[in-house]
């Protein structure tokens, strides 16, 4: 794949140069296999792939973007140049930083050599895991795996390539008993074939069992412990975008003007690390070919820096941070169809940790929230959120008391981070509507507004 994609990227840049413009080409190729579980059965399998070229040009300080296929590069270039006349001129230039680390790509040959039959086998393992309890139905889920490769070149001499593997599994188990219904969810995702599919099904069903006999939560401010997926879901719609240089420049960030100030608990640091060795978005470079780096955004509670892609860095007089992604509009992926924007890659929370059990033991009255509904409805400008509890438990006097029948939690995420504490149960997590991913543990927040039927 490497030689092919690099040849296309170089060809596009060469063609752009001969048309008299500066040019950057992003060539992406992916292959994806998925196997679907519905109603306890493996019902469907898909072999999909995508391949295309995103072209960005600069002509007389004006930038344009277009996408095309490897066979229609001239068409793509002409489109990009044609639309560039609408953009505001600036001092834009493509970077020439080629200081790539020589570490190996996060590539697992075992994933690369999986065939559809392997996917079917792993899906079956997941269904078997889920049905250890005969009451449970492996309602919906699936297995997905694939490869993504990308080549980037620009007219400033940058030529870069990297590729990576992915595998994921997810299951929702449903139990219907008497008049009660409960569901339990579990998923895992990795760059390596390093997790057990049987466990995913088993955990999903365990959760469904533990969600039987739900009760309402009371309405009061209380301690809320959020599991990684719930916490990351909300952070991606509140804290993460506020750390992007373009939001700061537009005055849409609660962190604007706060560099050097305390914005989180003193023992918490937040990194965006494009080099993280487990990271779902770890590649040698970002999607503009800028070398990946480790960015310390918040260090011991103090705000240190913001993230930039190459053009927003120029707009703000900053340096790029290796944070450019061709983020899909409404999805978790990246695609050559959209131009690069600033986006967190692998957000990692660091600091003093304790076990989640200890956190629970120290909580007199609170809730443990596994997943939430509606994180995307948070107010990105202010960081306020108000979401429903998808799955959670009441904590009474240091113990898990009962599963919750809905209820809501709300607060201001940037504010809550100032009194947050970290557990040690780190997980790789993704966000539904952004390619940003994270590696974070459960987080304990104080004085969160909880609303329920009582």
């Amino acid at each position: 794949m490497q030689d092919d994609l690099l040849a296309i990227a170089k060809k596009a840049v060469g063609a752009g140069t001969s048309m008299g413009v500066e040019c950057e080409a992003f060539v992406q190729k992916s292959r994806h296999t998925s196997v679907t579980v519905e109603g306890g059965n493996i019902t469907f399998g898909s072999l999909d792939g995508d391949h295309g070229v995103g072209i960005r040009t600069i002509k007389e300080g004006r930038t344009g973007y277009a996408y095309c296929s490897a066979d229609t590069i001239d068409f793509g270039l002409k489109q990009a140049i044609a639309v560039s006349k609408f953009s505001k001129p600036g001092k834009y230039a493509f970077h020439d930083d080629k200081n790539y680390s020589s570490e190996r790509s996060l590539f697992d040959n075992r994933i690369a050599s999986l065939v559809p039959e392997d996917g079917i086998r792993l899906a079956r393992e997941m269904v078997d895991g889920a049905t250890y309890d005969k009451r449970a139905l492996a309602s919906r889920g699936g297995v997905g795996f694939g490869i993504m490769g990308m080549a980037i070149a620009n007219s400033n001499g940058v030529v870069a390539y990297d590729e990576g593997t992915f595998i994921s599994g997810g299951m929702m188990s449903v139990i219907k008993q008497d008049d009660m219904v409960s569901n339990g969810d579990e998923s895992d995702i990795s760059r390596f074939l390093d997790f057990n599919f049987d466990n995913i099904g088993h955990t999903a069903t365990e959760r469904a069992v533990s969600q039987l006999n739900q009760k309402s939560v009371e309405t009061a401010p209380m301690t809320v412990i959020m599991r990684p997926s719930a916490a990351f879901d909300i952070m991606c719609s509140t804290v993460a975008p506020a750390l992007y240089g373009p939001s700061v420049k537009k005055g849409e960030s609660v962190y604007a003007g706060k560099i050097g100030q305390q914005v989180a608990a003193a023992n918490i640091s937040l990194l965006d690390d494009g080099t993280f060795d487990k990271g779902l978005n770890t590649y040698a470079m970002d999607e503009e070919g800028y070398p990946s780096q480790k960015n310390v955004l918040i260090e011991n509670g103090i705000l240190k820096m913001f993230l930039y892609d190459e053009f927003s860095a120029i707009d703000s007089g900053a340096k790029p941070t290796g944070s450019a992604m061709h983020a899909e509009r409404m999805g978790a992926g990246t695609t050559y169809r959209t131009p690069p924007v600033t986006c967190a890659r692998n957000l990692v929370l660091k600091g003093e940790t304790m076990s989640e059990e200890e956190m629970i033991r120290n909580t007199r009255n609170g809730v443990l929230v596994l997943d939430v509904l509606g994180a995307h409805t948070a107010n990105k400008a202010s960081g306020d959120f108000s979401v429903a509890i998808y799955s959670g438990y009441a904590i009474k006097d240091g113990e898990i008391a009962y599963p919750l029948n809905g209820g809501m939690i709300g607060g201001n995420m940037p504010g809550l981070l100032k009194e947050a504490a970290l557990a040690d149960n780190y997980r790789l997590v993704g966000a539904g509507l952004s390619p940003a991913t994270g590696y974070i543990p459960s987080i304990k927040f104080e004085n969160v507004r909880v609303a329920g039927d009582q």
Partner: protein
Amino acid sequence: MIRAVEEALKGRADYFDVRSTDVTSTDLEMKNNEVSRAIAGKEVGACVRVLYGGAWGFASTPDLGEPSLKEAADRAARMARSISEKIGEKSTLAPVSTSNGTAEIPMKKNFLEMNIESKLQLLESTYEAVKDYDFIANLTSAYRDTYTVEELRTSDGTNIITKTPRVFWELMIVGRKDGDIQSIRRRIANTKGFEAFDGGIEIETARDAVSSLVALLAGKSPPSGQMPVIADPGLTGVFAHEAVGHASEADLVATGNSCFEGMIGKKIGNDIVTIKDDATIPGLFGSYIYDDEGVRTRTKVLIDKGILNDFILSRETAAKLGMTPNGGARAESYHYRPIVRMSNTYIERGDATFQEMLEGIKMGIYVKDTRGGQVNTSMGTFQFNAQEAYLIEDGEIKKPLRDVSLSGHTLEILQYIDLVGRDLTLGHPGICGKGQTAPVGDGGPHIRISKCLVGGR
């Protein structure tokens, strides 16, 4: 083309279909008065879906040439065969009459014949309409149009070409006052041509957004807990979509994942509640003529006077549930198989006036429009968020609130709808995510919910 695939699949498919799409699109964005995105794109591709031994295989290709299609067919058939070897319950398809010919949704103002300059004017006029308010920190406006030509051929004789234009306009305004930041969003989207914006509707909508932003900037945090709620048509629509529409999706029903399973014919809501999903209303964002299985779509009365009446169905789920397909299978693109999706989901009008709804509320909330929502269909728990909200005290609308979310359980809340307004507004557009995205619409009248869980920050 179909012959080549037919040959490749000889003896290896009980059913197959080939769907090819050709999408022409324009994607524009302005931040304040500067163009921040202008992309003109064209994309073609095809996919082959094979049913063999009760199992499905699927493969896609961006290349419409015969060798690529044959290869995709071969890969789909191999996948189906592998899955079929140890299949439990077999998938089948409910019979439908075949569809043939061309179904074209007309454009009065053909955006394919317009240049980018004239489309950008729409965003420029939006900016001009509201630029002078000093509390507006930023304004982002976006325009997108897509023209999709799709050809579907199935092994049981359907050969239908559909041509669908869609336009989408969105405005996001961020306002600042006394160090406080708030944002508001408005959308206009239709299945039609550029005539969707006739009469300067974007300017009117932008001005309306500004007045909402003023209220938000003055807004206070809401009270929390159970209370009566009046929802405007925008929020009523999202309620219909999240709380009822998703649970009515037959793929969820058939896999034990809907609180509506086994409840057709049962009374689940107040008599005054009728909820429909209707792709046949011309021009709305979720409208279409044939679904992506070639089935002509029809009006689905999901809840008829409080009684659960119908689900949204694909051919496969209709067979599984012993029902008749109603044209509810949609695919985002050639990368995906069609799955059960909503179209335009709304609550039918009633006879109450807004004043009647306010009367008798000692303390409650009036909620308007939405930033979105989400649902857990198996348990029927839903959340949705209002863009704008007001406190109701002693039957009167009082101070503005902000960041109000609502949550509840579908089967309870349908009983708690105690008044349905005589007004009806359709055409509230949305983009629904369910692994794939789909353009949808929703709407309804004002409704009153006697008690609903309200949460704030």
